[in-house]
């Protein structure tokens, strides 16, 4: 029995992920974070002085984005500067940016979020179907990504504005 009810709360468009496996995973993750926030506060205040190494200089960021991939499968991509190691997570100086790749027929469009970066500070290298992105300057980002097809590096056009980098590349014939 489907009840097509239009939800009254008009707060922009929402995509409902449902309760499936991946999406349950996301739910668990969010729960875990809220737990961390609550526990963190009580745990830490209970223990008084808490030793934190290195966090003065660095801030840890960890995140993921989910979108429908080019083949119609949802893809999960990670970003941030927290890396998992055998000894637990460590914070790196370089942050992996949030990147989206769009297939636009003849052209591949790569959109990266690089807040705090100027156009001059961006370096892009393309070899075969691998794009390497890095920045110099105050905020450091680095990412290597596999493009969905081979491209012609000479056709690259890149713009960086308001912290968003857009790179266009013609697909190789």
């Amino acid at each position: 029995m489907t009840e097509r009810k239009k939800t009254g709360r008009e707060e922009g468009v929402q995509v409902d992920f449902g309760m499936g496996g991946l999406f349950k995973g996301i739910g668990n993750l969010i729960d875990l974070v809220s737990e961390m926030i609550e526990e963190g506060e009580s745990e830490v205040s209970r223990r008084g002085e808490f030793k934190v190494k290195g966090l003065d200089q660095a801030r840890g960021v960890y995140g993921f984005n989910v979108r429908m991939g080019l083949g119609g499968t949802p893809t999960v991509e990670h970003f941030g500067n927290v890396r998992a190691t055998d000894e637990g997570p460590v914070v790196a100086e370089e942050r992996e940016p949030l990147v989206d790749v769009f297939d636009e027929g003849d052209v591949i469009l790569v959109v990266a979020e690089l807040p705090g970066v100027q156009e001059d500070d961006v370096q892009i290298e393309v070899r075969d179907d691998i794009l390497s992105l890095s920045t110099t300057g105050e905020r450091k980002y680095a990412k290597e990504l596999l493009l969905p097809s081979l491209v012609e590096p000479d056709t690259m056009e890149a713009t960086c504005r308001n912290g968003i980098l857009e790179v266009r590349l013609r697909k190789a014939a």
Partner: protein
Amino acid sequence: MGNGDSEEKGKGIHIDLGLGEMFKGLGDLVKVAADLADKVDLSELDEEKIAELRRASQTRVGGIPRGVYGVSVRRGTGGIPRVQPFGNIRRTERGPVVDEVREPLVDVFDEQDVLLVIAELPGVEEKDVRIEIQDDVLKLSTATKGRKYAKELQLPCSVEESTMESAYKNGVLEIRLRKGGAEEGA
């Protein structure tokens, strides 16, 4: 009991967070997130949902969203690590939902007389940023056609709204506010 000397892991500075419980929590988080990719199972979704998702993801950045969720960890006052979530995936009773409006990554720094708020708002124009202050609550939103951000944050103390200075550059918004003096009453 491993020895504390962290090995040189090649390029980049790796900082041991040394967060104890927090550390474990973050480790779990990374693990859970890594597992997510393996959990992708379209068979659990009905046709309609798949079509909906596909439509959503084909719309470019300005339109319907992709889901973003993340946490930032940094040292807070008194050495207490502070974890803050950001992104546009919200928990609802029906499961996680991707919203059009994204919560940005925000840091607040206490600089004695002044509070400094730094928000990452890539892809908006300075003129589209709206900042509102009520006592010790700062409301931040963007009214652009493209990317939409909104965040309400509790400042560590009350501030003098008239002293607000803000600047937006390369996707980063900086707001400076003088702290409110010990007001008349107290």
